[in-house]
Every structure is written in structure tokens, then in C-alpha cells.
């Protein structure tokens, strides 16, 4: 018998979709990295890209587009925008539906009429989101580990680990936010809307802060700043940022535990 019986059901539901999600992510990474040698060797692309307006590049999460190294190429093509977007679709989608969606479908009432503490339901759900984010991170790592020798990406192991750690923690932080908003509103849709808006604003705050001085203080509130800023695949991840992300995630979850315990559930 599962050790987290409340969610045994959720896990079973998500296994197949997680598998396909992983296949898709791995495929995307393989294709993008396989194009690297061509792009590196095509004269002019780097020069062309370097002439892009800085604010356009910043919108895509890159400070300097540098296609002459594998790390620079992947930072621009994958880790600036696509990979964070994919992890968030996975964790926010799950976070919004696990409790908020269960309440909408009338399942939460039934589960909580059993001798199960609300806190436990919330914490098990949080653990499930961690699992999803870790599976995602592992797929990214493995895909790049396979491609690195084939197309000579010459990635630094430490930088890659740091970059993926940032992405995984970003997924956990916003996934937990979606979980908590769903648990406190009883609505999957509201959770998706709120968390989606927070994610978009946080992304803009982090990426545009490089250009707009007025935004510089705000970026310090953005989880993206602590996860993806400064091209960690090239320059190395600022490891203590992981602690900030963990603290943000823990704060969100703590609020959730306290408030969810007292909330009136909708029938």
C-alpha cells in the first residue's frame, strides 16, 4: 500500500501524462542541441544576433546572446525562456488541480470526511509537485548529458547542475503557489489565473530589470531572478539563490497550511 494514500490516486492519474511530457521535453532538447554545430558554424549568425536590440533579448531572458559556445547557445535557446515555461506548465498545472480541482469535482469533501488531516493532504500534494519538478530536472539533465559529447556542447557540470537546480526550484515555488491558491479558493481556474499572472509579472520583473532601472528593486521579489537571471549556464549559478527560492516556497506553503486548516470547504 502506498505510503501517501491520499495521493496514490493523483500519482496514478499523472503517471502517463508525465511520461509523455518527459518524452516531449527530451525531444525538444535533443533537437535544439542537435542544431548547435550548424548554427555555430554558420558565419554571421552570432554577429546578426549580437545586433538584436538588447531589450528584445532581455524579454527572452538572455543578457548576451553568444552562440559561439554550447553554454551560450543553450542559455539563449532553452534556459532563457522555454525550459522555465515548460517546468511551470507542469507544476502550476498540477498544483492548481490537485486540491482546487479536487474540490471542484466534489472529491475533497469525500477525502476529508475520512480520518485524514487537511495539513497532510496539502503536504502530500506539495511533495507530489516536488517529484514532478525533480523528474523534469532529471529529464533535462539526462538529455543534455546524452547530447553533450555528440555535438560538443562542452558544458560545465557544475554550471549545468546549478542551472537545472534553479529551474527545479522555480517550478516548485510557483507550483506550490498554485497549490495553495487552489486550496484556499477551491477553484482550479482561479489558481491558474492568479499563479499565471504572478509568473508572468515575475518573469518580466526579472528580465526587464536589466534594462529599466526603476525595476531593479522589484526584481529582488521575483523567483525568476533567483532561478534564471545572469545566464547561470555560462556564468555559474549563484548557489545561495537556491536558499532564497526555498524560503519563498516554504513561506507560501506555510501560509497554505495555516489557512487551509480553517477554511470552509464548498460542497
Amino acid at each position, binding site marked *: *500500500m*502506498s505510503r501517501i*494514500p*491520499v495521493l*496514490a*490516486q493523483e500519482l496514478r*492519474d499523472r503517471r502517463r501524462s508525465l511520461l509523455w511530457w518527459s518524452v516531449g521535453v527530451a525531444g525538444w532538447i535533443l533537437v535544439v542541441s542537435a542544431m548547435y554545430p550548424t548554427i555555430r558554424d554558420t558565419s554571421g549568425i552570432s554577429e546578426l544576433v549580437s545586433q538584436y536590440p538588447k531589450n528584445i533579448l532581455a524579454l527572452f531572458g538572455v543578457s548576451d546572446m553568444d552562440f559561439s559556445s554550447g553554454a551560450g547557445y543553450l542559455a539563449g535557446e532553452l534556459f532563457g525562456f522555454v525550459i522555465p515555461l515548460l517546468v511551470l506548465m507542469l507544476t502550476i498545472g498540477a498544483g492548481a488541480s490537485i486540491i482546487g480541482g479536487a474540490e471542484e*469535482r*466534489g*472529491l475533497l*469533501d*469525500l*477525502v*476529508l*470526511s*475520512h*480520518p*485524514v*488531516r487537511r495539513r497532510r493532504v496539502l503536504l502530500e500534494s506539495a511533495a507530489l509537485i516536488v517529484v514532478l519538478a525533480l523528474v523534469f530536472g532529471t529529464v533535462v539533465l539526462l538529455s543534455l548529458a546524452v547530447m553533450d559529447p555528440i555535438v560538443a556542447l562542452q558544458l560545465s557540470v557544475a554550471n549545468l547542475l546549478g542551472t537545472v537546480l534553479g529551474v527545479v526550484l522555480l517550478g516548485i515555488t510557483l507550483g506550490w503557489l498554485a497549490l495553495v491558491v487552489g486550496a484556499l479558493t477551491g477553484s482550479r481556474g482561479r489558481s491558474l489565473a492568479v499563479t499565471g499572472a504572478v509568473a508572468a509579472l515575475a518573469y518580466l520583473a526579472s528580465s526587464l530589470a536589466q534594462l529599466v532601472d526603476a525595476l531593479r528593486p522589484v526584481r529582488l521579489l521575483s523567483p525568476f531572478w533567483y532561478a534564471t537571471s545572469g545566464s547561470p549556464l555560462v556564468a555559474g549559478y549563484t548557489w545561495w539563490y537556491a536558499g532564497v527560492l526555498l524560503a519563498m516556497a516554504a513561506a507560501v506553503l506555510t501560509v497554505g497550511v495555516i489557512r487551509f486548516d*480553517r477554511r*470552509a*470547504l464548498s*460542497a
Partner: protein
Amino acid sequence: MVVPAVRTESLTVEYRHGRGIAEVSLEVPAGEVFGFLGPNGAGKTTAIRTLLDLLRPTSGRAEVLGHDSVSGSLEIRRRTGYLPGEFALPGQLTGRQALDWLSSLRPDSPPIRRDELVERFSVELDRPVRQLSKGNRQKLGLVQAFQHDPELVILDEPTSGLDPLVQDEFHRLVRAHVGRGRSVFLSSHSLDEVQHVADRVGIIREGHLVAVETVEVLRSRGLRRVTLLTTDPTAAEARLSTLDSVSELSRRGDRLDFAVSGAFDPVIAALSGVPVVDLLSRAADLDEVFLALYRGQADPS
């Protein structure tokens, strides 16, 4: 002193947008079937969900099996079974997987009665829940509420969607459950149903508990609507109109419609000798019963 199955003291639950329940005080001794009767939206579900700590009282308190509904909720939920008014299960599970999943949430209470209940209600266990009819899903709901043989079963509109034969089987199940000293608290909007199965009935209206009566009292004072087909409507009308217990008598061709409150035998006696073609009697709807029961007292307006 024996601990009551359910006891509430001035239990009040307010919602932001009105409704809810106000000052509900009642006591259900162990070993009783208590029927909670009221129209939809009267507050039955609110009261029931408060007993299980799905809602919190705004004021007042509730005790279930001797435990406070808030501080003792885990213990309450360990020892009760519950069928929600809108019973839902993950659609892709089979009935068996769904029951296993719910049992796994009660590691201390094995589903000792499951096989017997499954057989009794001919429950479909091997098909995905989403393919089941409303009635077959509701049967699964009954099985999960009773399968661990809990001390108290709380059922919100348990017979909705069940066909009459299954309803009868359900009534026997409920009677047998309390026959072994256990308790059942159920809600219904059907007077007929609670009269069949309950020992006592609490009538709730617009959030207020307006009366708690034994079923005998309800029966003796209850209101029934009668339709009589006769070949001699003039004689029948003349005889019925002499009875105090008959009201709202109207005649259309050879058909008479009227209401009877209280005992039925005076009506039968009055009709002896009148050629009766057909006689149909049914319980009046709740509002009528309420008015018949409490006309002149406790004016709700």
C-alpha cells in the same frame, strides 16, 4: 450516561451571502435513526458538513460521538461513515479501485462489511465509475459509507437516484444497522422516506430547526392528499364533507380531491357503501405538512 451520537447546541453557520443555519439545537441518542427533513436549500447539508468539520460553526457547537466537531474531528471521522449529497469518485477508477482507495484512508477500520454490501446491492465493481449510472454510483456511495461498520453513519440525501427496490433494501440496511446499537443520521426532502426509516424527525426550514417529532406523531398528524374515483360522487362528497379531518374538498366529474389530516380510518368508514373505483393517497409536500402541523403556532413569517 450513554454518549449521544450527535448533539448540537445553538449551532449556527453563516455564509457570506446569507443562508446557512441558525441556533440549531438537537440531540440524537445512540441507536437511533434520525431523519433530517427539509426542502432543498433549508440547511440540511450545511448542518451535516459541520458535523464532519468540513464547515466551521460561526457560533454554538456540535458534538459527535462525544467529541467536539472541531477539536475532536479526526476521532469523529475515524468512527463515522459519510455519504455526501453530491457523491463523486475519480471517474477512471473501477468501483473496486475506488473502494480500495477510500479504505486506504482508514487504515484502522478495515472494510469488513464490503463483500456483504456489494452482494446486497448488486454493485458493479469492475467497470470504471464514469460508465456507471447515477444509481449505480450512489450504491457505491452507500457501500463506502457502511463498509467499515462505523458507529455512526451520516448520509446526505442517500436515496437520490436509487430505484424503489434499492431504496427498500437501503431502508432494511439502515434498520439493521441501528438494530445493532449503531446510529444513523440522514437527511431527506421526502416525508415518505423519513417516515419509512427514521425513529425521529427534525424538520428544518430556512436554516431553523422548527420541530423534532417522533415518526408516530408525524404520522398521526400528517397531511395526506387523496384522489377518489367513484361512480357516485354526490354521495361521497356529502359524506366526506361531514368529516373534520377532511379539507380542501373539490369535485370534478366523478373525481374528488381532498386533504386528510391525522387518522385515515374515519375516511374509510365514511366511504363504506360508496362505490369506489380507485383511491389514491400520497403524502402532501413538505410545506403543506409544515402548515398542517404548525398552523397557528410558531408562525414562520
